[in-house]
């Protein structure tokens, strides 16, 4: 008798269907992966199974848990959820009560699952099982990192020894290294506790790594379902094929790295952050985000700066483009020496930055054309006509049409916006372009196109790239040389191929280990 059986599930909001005709079965301790892009209805399906749909949702079809339908009345459904189903959600930042210590929140889960006595020791056991130290239980959520918070969520889900664990995008908000650790943890827990696992994600590699059976969803419908080997090996539906293809990057490194003369050099750059001290109290020792970093970028070279989140790579990038100031050490661009925000105005058109989040990089109240042409203020001698022509050229260069310029940012997709962001960065014809996680916020299918675009632009305009990322696969597709950073220092350097075969520094090994197996 199957643990979970969903027949003809339909979810609609005021008449508009979001999920239609969904069938799904899950045997005890069996694992099913659900893959689909944002808006495919996969999260709503998970919420429906747990009886957590918002009250405005209209649900049709049947959901049987161990043969009996989900109880209608809220109290019994809540008790069932508490005892038999564990859930882990996507946003670790807001999924925990900010005003309550994490230990208490775990204890509450244990208390609710029935055993009233001795839950103190159980909390410690759970913390240990998810890889957290005992003293973490007295911390508040904001005092823990994203990964640690996700582990607390998992501990809470396991408190009632559930038979079914539903994980809805548990790792997509984490950086790669932590992501891999959490996935391994889920794998180990599901196996040890013989729990059924419903794993939902938009990352095909994560789903493939964890679940023997995969179900592909698109726009509220099940496109294809079946064993992992069948879905990955010879996908029947076109959509599935596109998904699998996009997950494999075509690796195309340049034949020979052009050896131009040095364009930019950094000498012993450091950045110390003072902790916020009171007006009168003496300043307390601050943290050193960037520690004596030296590097050189040659003309038309593409260098990647990789490392786990918090290693100081973004801070270094901000200093290089002049958004921040180094506490000591100097930088030289062409013949000019500067320390960061004291970058002279004449040089600003030569260095530009592409931001990570396409949604936050455009002023919602300004037409996209106005935002793209904003950097041209740095070139006062350009007249109006030259200004407009240059913007039009750049927009066409990134594969979009100039007549889109009069529209507003919220009318474009993430991918299109990132292309506009690149156009804005290139409009002043810079020589050095710093790219901060250029594709990590995009859907998998769009990433490939943008990377290809970046590759072409570099060749056409002879640009020098400095790419900041923690995703080694993306780096290998774009960079001639890789610098690995850890705790503010560059610990290893080399060509991607060499680093991938013979990593020397253990940080590089950790990054490599975090990569999910090839499909």
């Amino acid at each position, binding site marked *: 008798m199957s643990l979970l059986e969903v027949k003809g599930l339909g979810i609609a909001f005021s008449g508009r269907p979001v999920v239609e005709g969904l069938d799904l079965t899950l045997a005890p301790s069996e694992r099913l992966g659900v893959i689909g892009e944002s808006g495919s209805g996969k999260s709503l399906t998970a919420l429906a199974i747990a009886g957590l749909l918002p009250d405005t949702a209209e649900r049709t079809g049947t959901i049987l848990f161990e043969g009996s339908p989900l109880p209608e009345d809220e109290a019994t459904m809540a008790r069932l959820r508490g005892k038999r189903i564990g859930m882990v959600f996507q946003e670790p930042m807001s999924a925990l009560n900010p005003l309550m210590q994490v230990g208490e929140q775990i204890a509450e*889960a244990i208390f609710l699952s029935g055993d009233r006595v001795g839950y103190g020791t159980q909390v410690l056991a759970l913390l240990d099982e998810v890889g957290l130290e005992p003293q973490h239980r007295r911390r508040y959520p904001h005092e823990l990192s994203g990964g640690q918070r996700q582990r607390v969520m998992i501990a809470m889900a396991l408190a009632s020894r559930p038979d079914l664990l539903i994980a809805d995008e548990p790792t997509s908000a984490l950086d790669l290294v932590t992501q891999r650790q959490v996935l391994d943890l889920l794998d180990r827990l599901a196996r040890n506790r013989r729990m059924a696992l419903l794993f939902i994600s938009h990352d095909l590699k994560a789903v493939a790594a964890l679940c023997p059976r995969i179900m592909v969803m698109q726009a509220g419908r099940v496109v294809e379902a079946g064993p992992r080997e069948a879905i990955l090996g010879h996908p029947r539906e076109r959509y599935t094929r596109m998904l699998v293809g996009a997950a494999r990057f075509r690796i195309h490194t340049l034949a020979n790295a052009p050896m131009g003369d040095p364009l930019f050099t950094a000498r012993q750059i450091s950045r110390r952050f003072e902790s916020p001290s009171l007006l009168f109290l003496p300043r307390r020792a601050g943290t050193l985000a960037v520690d004596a970093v030296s590097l050189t970028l040659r003309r038309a070279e593409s260098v990647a700066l990789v490392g786990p989140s918090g290693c100081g790579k973004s801070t270094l990038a901000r200093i290089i483009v002049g958004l921040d100031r180094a506490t000591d050490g100097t930088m030289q661009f062409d013949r000019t020496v500067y320390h960061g925000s004291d970058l002279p105005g004449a040089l600003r058109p030569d260095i530009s930055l592409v931001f990570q989040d396409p949604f936050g990089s455009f002023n919602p109240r300004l037409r996209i054309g106005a935002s793209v042409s904003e950097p041209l203020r740095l070139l006062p001698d350009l007249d109006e006509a030259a200004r407009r022509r240059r913007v039009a050229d750049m927009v066409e260069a990134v594969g979009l049409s100039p007549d889109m310029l009069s529209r507003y940012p919220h009318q474009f997709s993430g991918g299109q916006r990132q292309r506009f962001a690149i156009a804005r960065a290139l409009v002043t014809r810079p020589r050095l372009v710093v790219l901060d996680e250029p594709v990590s916020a995009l859907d998998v299918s769009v990433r490939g196109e943008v990377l290809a675009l970046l590759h072409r632009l570099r060749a056409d305009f002879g640009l020098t790239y400095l790419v900041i990322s923690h995703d080694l696969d993306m780096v290998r597709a774009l960079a001639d040389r890789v610098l690995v950073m850890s705790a503010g220092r560059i610990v290893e350097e080399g060509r991607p191929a060499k680093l991938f075969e013979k990593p020397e520094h253990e940080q590089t090994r950790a990054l490599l280990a975090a990569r999910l197996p090839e499909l």
Partner: protein
Amino acid sequence: MIPYVLKRLAGFVATLLAAAAVTFLLLDALPGDPARFILGINASPEAVQALRLQLGLEAPPLERFIRWIGGMLQGDFGLSYTQGAPVSALIAERLAVTFPLALAAMVISIAIGLPLGILAARRRGSLADTGLMMLAQLGVAVPNFWFGMLLVLLFSVTLRWLPPGGFVPWDENAWGAIRSLVLPSFALALPQAAILARVMRTALVDVQSADYIRTARAKGLTMGEAVWRHGVRNALLPVLTILGLQFAFLVAGTIIVENVFYLPGLGRLIFTAISERDLILVRGAIIVLVVGVTLTMLVVDLLYGLVDPRLRVRRASR
């Protein structure tokens, strides 16, 4: 917690000093001369001058300001020109009316506002919800001196349950004092209760859609239990912010309500003292009011720090 508290205290002291300086300067610039006012229409110029000297009005402003601040720190607010009594005694007498009135109004507004807000949020979208919110809209829109008068007409003139105004001193008859504060504190509390109800409802409705509530439900709590155990405390944060601001509005309201119910409060004291140019009394009274308001804001700030650990505990390492 310590740096958070120290930071707030520094702000508190700075605000007070600025308030004292501005009050002193503003009042010094007031036209009209207290001595002339005391002696009336037919008094001779010599008599007026004699009184000015007697009251020490001739000394240079800075010296008087320093003397005033120094005196206040030791609790001596100086002598009132018109009534000859120590200002601190006069203020204490009036504070025995205004402080309990403001406090009662605050308690009433919380006692009425919060439960109604929670009720409206729990039955969101129902008739009760829209009804309560319409009531809250009206509550804010009624001028409190008009509402006060309607209360008096109903409860004092027709029903004779409560006095129409005036104040029986505490030491003479505590019960009488309380009775004379009932209607004024309700008149004062109405708009604040309405605002509190709206803010509480909005806060609770927002909380219901928060992620940690969904997690709590996932742990096995019903929506009601989740909101009660996790939601209410988080919903208190915006409510606390409003409470902090409300004391300032209550103080403004007391001045009007004291007129409607002819209560011997601090507000009316300031009024009469200003029209009689009893500047030293006005200064003292204003400072007491300003201290009251800033003190409440400080207390609410500290409460905020207590309720919300994010303010007082260091952020996670990067």
